């Protein structure tokens, strides 16, 4: 006498449910921090990305041509259209705008396996820069990972200005700079030394560049070391900024999850200050990337500082689906009835649906299996409500509604 509304082992249904539960958990957490959901258009004009410097490589975008010959791109990211839209609003930057989104984004190839689509769940906070706002974004990311029961994770924090400033002291071509960036991203000490020697870099600058990839680990230790190699006022300020943010993160009680990494260089050039990424067990790529991008809005003729991050939903699923998912009852109520009582049973089912309960009505003769929170049996002689071990007779629909609603 059980009604099976879906096969819990059906991989398609299960995958969707696991995914939805993960997304719902994230959305709830974002809302609890005062963020509101937004959505950007699926199609964007190609010029938006072509004209915005330091963003996504034009080869990476999925392009379409409409009937007038205009080139469109499938939403490659959310940050840029969101920034454009906020820039057009003429907002007061002292009043922070807190947005979140869950959106599919499209690129020609995300990880070399041909996949062109992935889902990002992220936040953007527009308004004046402060250590508190930066720490809020990072703490929110950490709290979200905790909500997802991720047992072991690390957030690596770096600063976009630190390497940029050191690099500005080098006399190298753009290609050579890209090469140096790759060495630093790979913490490739074997090749950084000879590179600096080849380019006759001043001792002081060479020492700084050589140290950057090794500035990795516990924030207080790393900051102390970094202070010794800061070449100018801007680099000192970057360190001060990180120190301030870290102090607030300590107040949030999340310091154990933080490591500093000055070798962190994001491929998105628009990041201006703090940048960060998150790693969890069993997932080889970052599940989270973000940072402050105070100058992006200037490309849309506005001056609105902002910070944001995005979780990679598929990567999170890879690392969390094993333990995070709870199988919910597939429906709230199953009404099982004798054929002779069909009319009454269907009326009850209709009332229950009206009241917002997911309800299935089936004839007793069908002998189906139920994955249902409660069951109502309607026979010739009586009407029974079964909820767990609790079995109750009822006569009028009114009594039933009083009981369950």
């Amino acid at each position, binding site marked *: 006498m059980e009604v099976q509304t879906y096969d819990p082992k059906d991989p398609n249904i299960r995958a969707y449910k696991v995914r939805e539960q993960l997304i719902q958990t994230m959305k709830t957490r974002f809302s609890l921090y005062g963020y509101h959901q937004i959505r950007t258009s699926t199609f964007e004009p190609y010029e938006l990305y072509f004209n915005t410097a330091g963003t996504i490589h034009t080869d990476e975008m999925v392009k379409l041509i409409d009937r007038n010959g205009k080139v469109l791109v499938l939403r490659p990211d959310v940050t840029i259209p969101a920034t454009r839209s906020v820039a057009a609003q003429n907002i007061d930057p002292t009043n922070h705008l807190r947005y979140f989104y869950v959106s599919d984004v499209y690129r020609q190839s995300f990880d070399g396996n041909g996949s062109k689509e992935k889902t990002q769940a992220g936040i953007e906070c527009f308004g004046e820069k402060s250590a508190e706002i930066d720490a809020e974004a990072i703490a929110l990311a950490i709290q979200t990972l905790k909500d997802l029961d991720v047992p*072991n*994770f*690390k957030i*690596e924090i770096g600063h976009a200005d630190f390497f940029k400033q050191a690099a500005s002291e080098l006399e190298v071509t753009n*290609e050579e700079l890209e090469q140096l960036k790759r060495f630093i*991203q*790979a*913490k*490739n*000490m*074997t090749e950084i030394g000879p590179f600096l020697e080849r380019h006759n870099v001043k001792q002081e600058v060479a020492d700084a560049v050589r140290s950057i990839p090794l500035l990795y*680990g516990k924030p207080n230790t790393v900051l102390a070391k970094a202070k010794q190699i800061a070449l100018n006022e801007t680099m000192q300020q970057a360190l001060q900024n990180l120190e301030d943010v870290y102090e607030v993160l300590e107040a949030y009680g999340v310091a154990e999850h933080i*490591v500093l990494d000055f070798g962190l260089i994001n491929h998105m050039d628009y990041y201006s200050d703090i940048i960060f990424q998150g*790693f*969890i*067990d*069993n*997932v*080889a*790529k*970052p599940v989270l990337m973000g940072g402050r991008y105070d100058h992006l809005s200037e490309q849309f003729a506005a001056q609105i500082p902002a910070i944001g991050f995005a979780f990679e939903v598929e990567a999170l699923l890879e690392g969390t689906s094993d333990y995070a998912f709870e199988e919910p009852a597939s429906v709230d109520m199953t009404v099982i009835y004798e054929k002779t009582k069909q009319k009454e049973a269907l009326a009850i089912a209709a009332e229950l649906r009206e009241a917002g309960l997911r309800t299935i009505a089936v004839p007793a003769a069908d002998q189906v299996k139920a994955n249902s929170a409660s069951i109502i049996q309607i026979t010739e002689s009586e009407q029974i409500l079964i909820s767990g071990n609790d079995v109750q007779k009822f006569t009028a629909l009114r009594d039933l509604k009083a009981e369950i609603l």
Partner: protein
Amino acid sequence: MEQLTLALAKGRTAESTIELLNKAGIEFPDFHTKSRKLVFSNPEETLKLIFVKAVDVCTYVETGAADVGVVGKDNILESGADIYELLDLKLGKCKFSVAGLQDTPPLEEAKKLVVASKYPRVATNYFNQKGIAVETIKLNGSVELAPLIGMADCIVDIVETGNTIKENGLKIMADIDDISTRLIVNKSSFATKTESIQQVIDQLKAGLE
């Protein structure tokens, strides 16, 4: 401490790498060169060693199937993997070179070249940087043959002694890069298993001295 998986390239540097690991105090008692086993553990079971094809080591590490890897710089350059390259183990030293027939004109004079290589990415990047247009043909072995039968103008390959090049009547036209065996690490593993990985690095550093 959690277990780390170490991917090791099969082939010419495998034995010397195991020797270095032993010197660093990392032992795999079951290992011997004739064994066909592909997975070994150290007695403490803190390290699992897997033997994979050299060209696959970067893939294992980038995808996180292995936390650390030991592989030649040639394969790292060709894979373009997003990984940490933390130590030069100074084994299997050789060079990436361009070689051609004795009468092939200098590279700088070429307008367009056909290049054969096991390393098409390395070859293409090198000539792009030089501003020379190339068509690259990917071969899996006996690359020296390509200029001899007129399939390509030159080749890009790893050169250890230069004997194979000479014996086939070719000459070295340019050197691209020095190659040696490197320790590579997955970026996520480095963040989530920092201490265990740092310990392996420190041991290897001590073994190198």
